[in-house]
């Protein structure tokens, strides 16, 4: 295997950058702190390219459908690519050309927003039918879950202000048992993050990006 494909180099890069960033918190040496500031700026720049990567990848996937003329799909993929190009041109042009700015605003507010809201709103409908199918008090744990859930639901509905004890009980549920339970999860997650950090620093993590090719 070529040296530049070896996982050891990647493991060292991850371990080194993790240690450098962690120690920046404890070291107050200007040169070192400025170096880490620069590293953060570098990672912001690289992150911008990953956003572009994701967008280009969608284009590649749908481009393949167009080239292969996948039945029942290729014309939708063509429409998708057209939308990508038109949106990008309008967005880029909106910086300097008022007409393109109006067109871009029109696209976002009158086409994209209702479409995307309705599509994501579908989740709400499936959620409602999921409540109907699955949220049954099979045991005491589910009963606590449902009671806590219903009280929090009612807390968010302004009409329940008419019944004095509902907001009080709802607020209590959010402020006491919810805080206790969530804090346990947050502490557990923190220990998990620290463990993951240690595993990467010690080179024990071998999955995903750090796996053998």
């Amino acid at each position: 295997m070529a040296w530049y494909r070896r996982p050891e180099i990647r493991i060292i890069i991850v371990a080194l950058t993790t240690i450098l960033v962690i120690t920046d918190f404890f070291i107050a040496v200007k040169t070192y702190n400025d170096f880490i500031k620069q590293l953060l700026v570098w990672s912001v720049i690289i992150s911008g390219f990953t956003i572009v990567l994701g967008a280009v990848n969608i284009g590649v996937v749908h481009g393949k459908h167009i080239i292969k003329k996948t039945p029942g799909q290729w014309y939708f993929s063509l429409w998708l690519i057209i939308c990508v190009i038109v949106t990008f041109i309008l967005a880029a042009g909106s910086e300097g050309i008022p007409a393109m700015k109006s067109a871009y605003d029109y696209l976002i507010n009158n086409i994209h927003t209702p479409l995307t809201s309705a599509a994501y709103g579908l989740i709400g409908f499936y959620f409602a039918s999921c409540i109907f199918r699955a949220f049954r008090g099979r045991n005491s744990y589910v009963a606590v879950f449902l009671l806590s859930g219903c009280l929090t639901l009612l807390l968010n509905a302004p009409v329940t202000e008419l019944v004095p004890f509902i907001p009080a009980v709802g607020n209590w549920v959010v402020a006491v048992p919810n805080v206790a339970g969530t804090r346990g999860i947050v502490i557990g997650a923190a220990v998990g993050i620290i463990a993951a950090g240690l595993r990467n620093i010690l080179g024990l993590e071998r999955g995903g990006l750090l796996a053998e090719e």
Partner: protein
Amino acid sequence: MSDWFIPLLGAALSIFAFSFLYRDNPFFKFAEHTIVGVAVGIELYSGYQSILKTGWTPLTGGSYILIPAMILGVMTLGRLSKRTIWASNYPLCILMGVGLGLAVRGAVIGQLLDQIRATLLPMATPNPINNLNNFLIVVGTTASTMYFIFTRSHTGIFGFLTKLGRYFIMAAMGATFGSMSLTFLSPVIGPAFLMFREPGIYLTAATLIVILVDMIYRRRKGV
């Protein structure tokens, strides 16, 4: 014209998306691909703008120290081909390391120490309700943290405490479920205003009639 055209367009597009609730159809596919296309276009432009303002503009303004960052960024695009995927691993490893470093240094204080500190609550104040609430928070936090210890079997007193912790976790999950309901339903509000106010309400009524006719037709055909 925009008085009626824009709301009508919005209602029509909302109906296209909601039509999936009845059954999959070309209108929904059109809506789906439009959403993805526009979203990807926005993402592409946002990514391009981010690179421009954080990388290219300062670089052309004299910050030559950003050259390696731009090169690493371009290497990220190597992920698109199997032959060049190795090149994308280096910048992604840097992102992973920096992200992990930031997470670890903040997690120790913000998510671990400060959360433990916030759990150390007084239980002998003049207000008995405060005392009870603080007691429940202390016991609940301890018990729910214990639930995540898997190196010991959950039996005996330890088992009782982890069971108690599970109840607190279920209460927390329930509170999240209750609040999430609103988050899942709230995107419908905008389209609902378009569909149930004039002129969209006429289009909605016409769509419901079409759906009813289709249901009767399909039932008759035995589909």
